[in-house]
């Protein structure tokens, strides 16, 4: 293919700067700018599993549980997202979202998009309402 002026110039620039891309991992050490997650457990008691297990496994637990609940109607309380929210919702804001929310602050820090609460309520059911 015949190289015209613009193409050749672009090629030169790309060749000159690509080594800089190798330096990108340095940014990982710039994490001091990102606020550490806020873990305020307002309500006393144990979580359903230990902390290390929860941190590692909660996405898979939730995904497995959702299939059981939605497709098979299994509504045990142990791994229910509703129960997570009712325990972990902040007593100040009433929600697991927000800058210091239990779910959101960790997800912001880890830069992992959290999709659950576009559909699921981020606040527990009001006590006044009848809870089945």
């Amino acid at each position, binding site marked *: *293919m015949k190289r015209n002026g*613009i193409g050749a110039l672009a090629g030169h620039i790309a060749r000159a700067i690509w080594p800089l891309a190798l330096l990108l991992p340095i940014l990982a050490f710039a994490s001091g700018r990102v606020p550490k997650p806020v873990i305020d457990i307002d309500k006393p008691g144990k979580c359903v599993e230990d902390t290390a297990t929860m941190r590692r496994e909660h996405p898979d637990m939730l995904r497995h549980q959702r299939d059981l609940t939605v497709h098979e109607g299994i509504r045990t309380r142990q791994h229910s997202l509703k129960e997570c929210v009712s325990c972990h919702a902040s007593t100040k804001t009433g929600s697991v979202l927000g800058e210091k929310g239990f779910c959101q602050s960790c997800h912001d820090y880890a830069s992992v998009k959290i999709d659950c609460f576009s559909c699921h309520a981020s606040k527990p059911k009001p006590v006044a309402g009848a809870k089945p």
Partner: protein
Amino acid sequence: MAESPIYRELGGTGRRYWKLLALLAVPLALGAVAYFYIEHYGHIVTGMDNQIVWGMPHVFAVFLVVAATGALNIAIAASVFGKTAYRPVAPLSALVSLALLAGGLAVLMLDLARSDRMIVAITRLNSQSLFALRVILYDGFMASVGIYLWFLLERRMNRYIKPAAILAFLWQLLLITGTGLEFGFNVGREVYDSVLYAPMFIAFSSAYGTAVFVLILFAVCGWEERPVSGELLRRLRNLLGIFVGASLFFAVLFLYSKYELARSREVARFLLFDGGVYTALLWLGQLAIGGIAPLALLLRAQASRAAVTAACVLVILGGLAQMYVTLIGGQAYPQILFPGMIESSSFFDGEIHPYTPSVPEVLLGLGGAGLTAAIVAVALRALALLPERLDPTAGPQA
């Protein structure tokens, strides 16, 4: 077997070519902006609602997808049915087919209300669903046409062209039949619910796909300043004429069948007489501009490039009109829950549903068309797909 033609990349490039790409970038950019706008704010910013759930993006997308299957006809004629006159342009036919499909699928995927789940759409298939099959049909079509194109160009694989072409042909038939039955098997809507949609869409796809292919072929020849051979022009004119004729036949048969059967006479009256914009688009757009006028141009004794070009443009316009009537008209007419009763509700039962296309929807649809054109332009420059000689001479160079 005749020796395969020699292929090369698009010639006559330079500043002109970059200007073309810059031009094609405009609909692409506008389409991208439209997509992000709709994705961010939700479909509330479009003209769609709970009554018209598929709007302008689908009109464009289904047109592109239907044309994609038909655009392969020229290549199939060459490699399956032995019409060696088309052999030089078979790779171009395959390319146009793939590009049309890519443009159409792009619009379909980007119009999803949860387009962030595109990967789910491609990977998670409902085993119970006849229509989840469509994803396999799309993928298989792209793969089989891709393989066929490769065999066309790779001299060592030339002897496997025919089996590859037969596979692509079967897949093409499956895909277009499935597209038609998407509407045909929809028993809930009066405008659909007819198995005739399958052959009708086969005819439509042949007409629209051939029209797009011929326009692109003429454009390429114009760009390279080389004439289209008289023989090829004559054959393409005849082929397009047959396809347009078939489309008219099935459209008339479909409308007649709807009118004739008492259970569907009301919806036939809606389409033919009472439908306002849909009636106008049906008669003027689909039948007159998309059918009668092109036939008049094509049936003339002398095949002229101008007449064929005009006919192709009219067929495409008629095709867009037909898609609007099918898609939007089919949704504007309400679902009938209680035949024979007048229905009304807070959910707009029993009334014709209004629809106004919004700018983002149209831009998204045009972006898909732009993507098709861009793929063709870039591929022709990057790959050797165009024949050295267009005329089918007798002898080894055919």
